[in-house]
C-alpha cells in the first residue's frame, strides 16, 4: 500500500516538474539555438539540445505532458471499449456475441493504414499540430480495441459458464448485477492492457508522422524522440538521446506500481 502511495506521489511530482520546466522564464520547446545543434549538457541546456538546437529538457517535458495525457486517455478509452464490447458480447444474446466477434476478426485483418491516410487527406493541411495530435490519439483509441475485446469476451464467457454464475443466475440475479461482479474478475486482463497500450500508443503516434498525422512540428513528440534510437548515427552523438526512453520506463514503472502491479 505504501508503495502505491509513493508511486502516485512520484508520478504527480514528475508531472509538476515537467510543468515547472516549461513555465520557467526562458524555456521554449521550439526555439532553435542554431549555433548549438546536438550540444552537450550545459547550464543553458541542462540536457543538451537536439539536432536543430532545441532544448532537450523543455522538449521532453512538453512531450511528457502531451503524449502521456494523449496516450493514457486513448489507452483508457480503448480498454473501456474492449471491456464494454467484450462483456456485452459474452452476456448478451448468442447472436450478439457472434456478430461482435465477427466484427472484431474483420477489424483485425483490415489495413487501417489506409483509413489513416484518408483521415489525413480529409483534414485541412493547416490543421494545427495540437489538433492533429488529438485526432491521432482519437483514431488510435478507435482502432485499438478489437484484440482485447476478444480476450475479454473469452474471459467473460468462461465466467458466465462458471459454477458461481449458474448459482447467481439460478438465484435470480439480473444481468446488470452480475456484471458488477464480473468486472473485477476481468481486471487481470484489463489492467495490463491499459498499461501495455500506453507505450504502444506513444510509439504508434510517432509512426503515424509518416502519414502526416501525429504530433506535428514544432510540437515535440515523445514517440518521435524514442524513434531517434533507431538511427545508429544519433546514438553516437550524445548519451542524452536515451533520456526520453529512460523517462518513459520510469513513468511506466511508476504507473504500474501505483496500479498495484508490483
Amino acid at each position, binding site marked *: 500500500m505504501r508503495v502505491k502511495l509513493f508511486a502516485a506521489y512520484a508520478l504527480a511530482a514528475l508531472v509538476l516538474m515537467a510543468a515547472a520546466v516549461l513555465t520557467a522564464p526562458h524555456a521554449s520547446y521550439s526555439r*532553435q539555438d*542554431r549555433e548549438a545543434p546536438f550540444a552537450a549538457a550545459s547550464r543553458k541546456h541542462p540536457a543538451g539540445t537536439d*539536432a*536543430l538546437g532545441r532544448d532537450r529538457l523543455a522538449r521532453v517535458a512538453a512531450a511528457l505532458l502531451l503524449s502521456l495525457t494523449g496516450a493514457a486517455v486513448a489507452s483508457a478509452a480503448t480498454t473501456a471499449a474492449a471491456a464494454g464490447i467484450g462483456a456485452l458480447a459474452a452476456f448478451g444474446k448468442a447472436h450478439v456475441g457472434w456478430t461482435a466477434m465477427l466484427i472484431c476478426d474483420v477489424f483485425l485483418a483490415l489495413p487501417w493504414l489506409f483509413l489513416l491516410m484518408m483521415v489525413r487527406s480529409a483534414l485541412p493541411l493547416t490543421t494545427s499540430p495540437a489538433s492533429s495530435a488529438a485526432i491521432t490519439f482519437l483514431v488510435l483509441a478507435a482502432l485499438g480495441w478489437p484484440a482485447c475485446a476478444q480476450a475479454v469476451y473469452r474471459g467473460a464467457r468462461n465466467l458466465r459458464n462458471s459454477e458461481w454464475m449458474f448459482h447467481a443466475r439460478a438465484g435470480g440475479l439480473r444481468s446488470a448485477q452480475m456484471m458488477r461482479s464480473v468486472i473485477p474478475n476481468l481486471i487481470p486482463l484489463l489492467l495490463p492492457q491499459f498499461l501495455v497500450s500506453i507505450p504502444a500508443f506513444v510509439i504508434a503516434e510517432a509512426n503515424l508522422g509518416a502519414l*502526416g498525422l501525429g504530433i506535428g*512540428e514544432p510540437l515535440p513528440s515523445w514517440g518521435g524522440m524514442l524513434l531517434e534510437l533507431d538511427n*545508429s548515427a544519433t546514438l553516437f552523438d550524445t548519451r542524452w538521446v536515451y533520456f526520453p526512453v529512460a523517462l518513459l520506463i520510469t513513468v511506466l514503472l511508476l504507473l504500474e506500481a501505483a496500479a498495484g502491479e508490483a
Partner: protein
Amino acid sequence: MRTLKMRIWIATFSIAALFAPALAHTCAAQAAPRMPGELAWTIGYDPKTFDPAKVDDQESELVRYLTAGVLLRFDRFTQKIEPQLAESWNLSPDGKTLTFKLYSGLQFSDGSSLTSKDVAWSIRRVLLPATGAPVAEEFLSPSGVTIDTPDLRTVIVHLPQRVIGIGKIFDEIAIEPASRPSEGRVTSGPFIVAEYRRSQYVRLRPNPHYAKHDASGHPLPYAAGVRLDILENHEQEIRLFEHGEYDLIDSLPPDYFELLKKKTPSSVRDLGPSLNTEQMWFNQAPQAPLPAWEKAWFQSRSFRVAVSQAIHRADLARIAYLGHATPAYSFVSPANAAWYDSKIVAPRADVAAAKAGLANAGFRFHDGVLQDSAGHPVRFSILTNAGNDARLKMATLIQQDLAALGIQVTVVPLDFPALIERLMHTQDYEACLLGLENVDPDPNAMMNIWLSNSPNHQWDPSEKTPATSWEAEIDRAMNRQASSSNDAERKQAVDRVQQIVADEQPFIYLVYPNVLVAFSPQLKGIQPAVLEPELVWNAESLRLEGTR
C-alpha cells in the same frame, strides 16, 4: 518452493536450447555468399525490368549501365561523349545525319558477332511505339527516324530534325543481338545478368567477349562479377559495409557519413555539391482548390521574394545536412562547370528587406502576425515527403525563419503517393519542399520543368498559354537553347532563364546536397564522379585487392 523454481528454470533452459539455432541466426544471414573477386553493393528496390529498351526506373537503369554495350558513352567523369562500340562517329553540319563506324570483330557475350545489322535492329526496336521505350521521346519525332546499314561496320541514322545532345541519347540505347532480345542475358557491355532473386539480389558476371582492354592489354572487366543486393535499410547497409560485405555506398545520408567518418575516415568522401537541387515552391495554379486570397499571395512576386529572403540557407546546409550541402540560388549547380553562371543575382538572406518588401506589397504586421491587405492572417502549410530526414529538418528550420516575418507555417510530411496525388492531380496544397535529381548536366534535360505547358511545370502545371510574361519569356529562351547549334547562344539563353527564375522565384532554391560516398580502401581503380552512377561509372576498371 525451490523445487518448483528449479523445475521451471530447467524446463525453460531446455526449451530455450531448442530455439538456440533461431537465436544464433543473426542478421547477416541474408547476404548471399560472395564469390572471389566479386564486387558487391546495394540497390534500393527491385529493378522493374531487365529489358534495356524498357527501362523506366533508376535501378533498372543502373543494371542497363553495367550490362549494355552502347555506341557512345557519356563519360561521367569528363562529362564528354566517348565512342564505345563505335570506332568513330560524326554528325552532319545540319545536325540531321549521324554516321557510326563500328570496330571490327565485335562480339556479343555469347560469342556471336556484332554487326551494323544488330545496331540497326536495336535502334529500330527502341523507336518502335510498340516497345514503349522512354528513350524514343528524346528523338522528338521517333517515327521519322530512318536507319541505313551500307556495310557491316557502318550505321547511318537520319533524323527528321536537329536534336540537341543527340550523342547522349545513344548512351541509353543498348545494342542487342538482332531479333534476340535477351533481357540482359546476352550483351555487348562489360557484364551480363547471370541471376536474379526477387527482393534479394541481382548477380552479374563478366562478359567474356567484352571488347575493351586496359593499357597493358589485360581484358576488362577486372572484377569476377557484381552482386547488387536489394536493400532499403541504410542501417544494414552501413553495418555490412563495415564488415566488408559491401565495397561501396553511393549515396550516404549526412548523419551516416559523419558516423562512418568517425570510425574509418579513409573510407568516406564528400565530393562537393551535386547537380541536384532542393527547392520549395508555392502552388500558383489558378485551378487549385485554395481560397482566392491565398492564390493571390502565391502569385505575388513580392511575397515569394520575401519568403526567399527570410530563409537562412547557410543554416539549412549546416544544420539539416551537417555541413554537407551548399546554399543554392539557381537550378544550375556549381558542379555543372559548363553551365554554371556565377553572375546570377538572386535574393539573399535579409529579413529587413523581406519585411520592407511585404509592406510595399500591401501586407502588414498586426500583433506579430502578418496579414494581407484584406486582413487575412498569412499562414500556409509546407508539404514534404515523409522519411527524408533532411527535408523535414529544412522545413522545420524554414518554419522558424518565416515565423520571424509573422507567418505561421505547418509542416506536413506525407507518404509519396499521397504527396504526388496532391502535386500532380488535385493541386490541393499550398507549398511544397522537394528535391530534383539532375542526371544530365545539359539544361536541355529540364525542358519539361520549364516549359509552361508541361505537366512537370510544378508551380502551375500544363498551362494552355503562359500565365505570365516571364513564363512566356522562359518558354522562348528554353526553345531557343533547344534549337540552336551554337553553344554560346545556348548558354546565353539558359543564363537568361536562370536570371528570370532568380527574379521571380517560382522555385525557391535552398541547397545543393553534396555527393557523399563511401568505398572500401581495397577497391582499386575508383574515380568518384559527381554524375550517376558516381562510384561505378567505370565498373569495368574496378577491382578488389587483397583478401577480405
